[in-house]
């Protein structure tokens, strides 16, 4: 880290002390032109990724999947099966890598932990009154502590969108700081719920707010509102982590979640990472896909590339 980055970092760390300072800083960030951002995202989507590049992208995407189930109907049996799939996504092919993490509700963490222990697959738990975040702070923090105690090493929190949209940035900031401290050693992913933030300017501000408050990852969505991850939203977030590292020297990860279902979609995201922030982020430590059905499409395309033929869905496991 350079001397200027160090001093910038210490200046930025002061911002959270005052509502005015935070507001001045966040509203001083360059704006995002909606048309331009969407056009850039669409352009990147036209890259043609074939043969060796496609094979490389598919394996990388598999390693980046946060295999997720967040249903009221989740049971120990269901999440154990999901964890087993995370370890060996393609039982027929031992060369297939395992996924990045399994992502479940706090109550399901102990069952997943039994399966994943020592495997290198991370265990993520949503917390902080996911998905709305509309609960008293103490309850949200207790949620986090319980998940960590049960074995989660990554916590996916939701920000307080009500406070953010009302302009109470310090309240949002303080909640993230408190959650980060409740996490202990666990990595904190901050869900911005970009579908509720509505504008790209808000996405950029929320991204910076989450990073300033200590988030290790910024994540687009809960998957529980109609608009989940999109390419332009992810572009704006990638630009934010790029600029944040340039200013402070600290690298923050990005996780688009919800609505990414096909290999083609996943490759568009990887191209965007490659051409926006570069190779440093092309790693499961710094980029993840929050998804469930994506994995099977990746496996089908992977099998197609190695065998030359498409297999039917019955050749891939359900969970």
């Amino acid at each position, binding site marked *: 880290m350079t001397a200027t980055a160090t001093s910038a970092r210490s200046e930025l760390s002061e911002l959270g002390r005052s509502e005015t300072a935070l507001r001045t800083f966040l509203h001083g960030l*360059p704006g995002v032109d909606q048309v331009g951002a969407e056009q850039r995202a669409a352009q990147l989507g036209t890259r043609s990724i074939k043969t060796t*590049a496609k094979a490389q992208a598919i394996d990388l995407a598999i390693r980046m999947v946060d295999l997720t189930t967040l249903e009221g109907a989740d049971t120990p049996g269901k999440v154990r099966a999901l964890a087993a799939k995370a370890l060996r996504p393609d039982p027929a092919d031992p060369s297939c890598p395992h996924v990045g993490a399994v992502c479940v509700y706090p109550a399901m963490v102990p069952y997943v932990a039994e399966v994943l222990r020592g495997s290198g697959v991370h265990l993520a738990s949503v917390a902080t009154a996911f998905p709305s975040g509309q609960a008293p702070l103490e309850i949200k923090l207790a949620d986090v502590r319980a998940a960590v105690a049960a074995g989660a090493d990554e916590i996916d929190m939701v920000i307080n969108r009500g406070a953010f949209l009302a302009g109470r940035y310090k309240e949002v900031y303080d909640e993230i700081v408190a959650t980060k401290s409740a996490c202990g050693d666990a990595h904190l992913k901050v869900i911005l719920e970009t579908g509720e933030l509505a504008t790209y300017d808000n996405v950029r501000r929320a991204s910076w707010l989450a990073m300033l408050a200590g988030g290790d990852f910024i994540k687009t969505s809960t998957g529980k509102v109609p608009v989940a991850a999109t390419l332009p939203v992810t572009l704006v977030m990638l630009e934010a982590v790029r600029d944040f590292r340039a200013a402070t020297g600290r690298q923050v990860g990005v996780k688009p979640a919800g609505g990414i279902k096909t290999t083609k979609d996943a490759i568009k995201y990887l191209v965007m990472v490659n051409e926006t922030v570069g190779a440093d982020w092309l790693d499961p430590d710094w980029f993840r896909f929050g998804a469930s059905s994506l994995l099977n499409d990746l496996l089908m395309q992977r099998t197609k590339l190695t065998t030359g033929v498409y297999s039917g869905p019955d050749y891939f496991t359900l969970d």
Partner: protein
Amino acid sequence: MFEYAPAPESRSVVDIKPSYGLFVNGEFVDPTDGGTFKSINPASEEVLAEVAEAGPQDVDRAVRAAREAYEKVWGPMPGRDRAKYLYRIARIIQERSRELAVLESLDNGKPIKESRDVDLPLVAAHFFYYAGWADKLPYAGFGPNPQPLGVAAQVIPWNFPLLMLAWKIAPALAAGNTVVLKPAETTPLTALVFAEICQQADLPAGVVNIVTGAGDTGRALVEHGGVDKVAFTGSTEVGRAIARAVAGTRKKLTLELGGKAANIVFDDAPIDQAVEGIVNGIFFNQGHVCCAGSRLLIQESVADRVLESLKRRMAQLRVGDPLDKNTDIGAINSAAQLERIRELSDAGSAEGAERWSPACELPERGFWFAPTIFTGVTQAHRIAREEIFGPVLSVLTFRTPAEAVEKANNTPYGLSAGIWTDKGSRILWMADRLRAGVVWANTFNKFDPTSPFGGYKESGYGREGGRHGLEGYLNV
């Protein structure tokens, strides 16, 4: 690292003939008094085809064919019937767009993603748009019964071969004129396939005539006494010569010439999108764009930040095989153009501007030039005044909006300009004061057939596109 594997578009969709004649009176004919020349692929220097060079007699034959078609068929034809032909041409262009895109990239050197996603959709859109006007001319605002001019002589450049053809031919035919068109000598092939499309559409013989050749052919065409209208897109130097040749005749003239557009970035601009706009403004089509944003004016307070982002972005540009779907910057169109870009860039260095290009490997054969920016440029530098017509950007700074306007207007040209700011009122204030035919706000190089395009000052006169584009082809 994530390396993209080669993703070449297939050449097999194109069937290039070994040689092409002139398209006169509905058929391909051999030249009577001209010779032949070769069209090459600028990315490999491979010869693509041998093309006829029209001499004065050939030009005369083409003009006579156009005259006859105008008097007997096309002029008297009701607008609704002319429209049917134009719609038919537009649909065939769409159907054959992949073939035309590949051929355009082969002959011109532009990346396939641009010929596929920009040129060809716009070509078809132009024909569709003007087809719609053909039976509505009384409602175009040029009087109750506007009449065509007659035979139009049209000379087009090599930077957007098929698109410039569409800009010329579509409004001319919609208004009831017949045409003799001369494509540029380095890029004649898509115009010749267009001639085939005219045959395929059963367009009456003589309505469209294509005479290939270089400067002499063009001169014979615009100076021909049987021509009623001259339309030219190209360099200001040639435009001047044409204006002189046409002066004192009955011929109506429109010129679309050079440019040295200012792309102006204010300190409140959306920086990431502005950087995309700067890249698109100067590196689109290798900078072979008359309205390219070749002068970047940045407000001093954000200059370092914008330049840092711009350099980082330029390092991502992929230069190489125009047929690879992931190529961003293709080949320079000709050895002569490459020489001119080199000469002006060397002048930039010699005059003290600081030159920068990203690390990029250029192919050995063919004509290539790495994307380049010059910083520390002043208004006095040649690279700030002369049109380079290549992937070379001159960067200047300004302090106030008034200074930005002053610098932007301080050029003999006036084709286009770009403004980047979050402040709507400033966009309007600037647009009122910029002497440029097109002013883009928070975007650049956006084209649409409904929007008129043309210049101030030495960038030419007359407008192409939109309702305004009909005026140049009507007796008003």
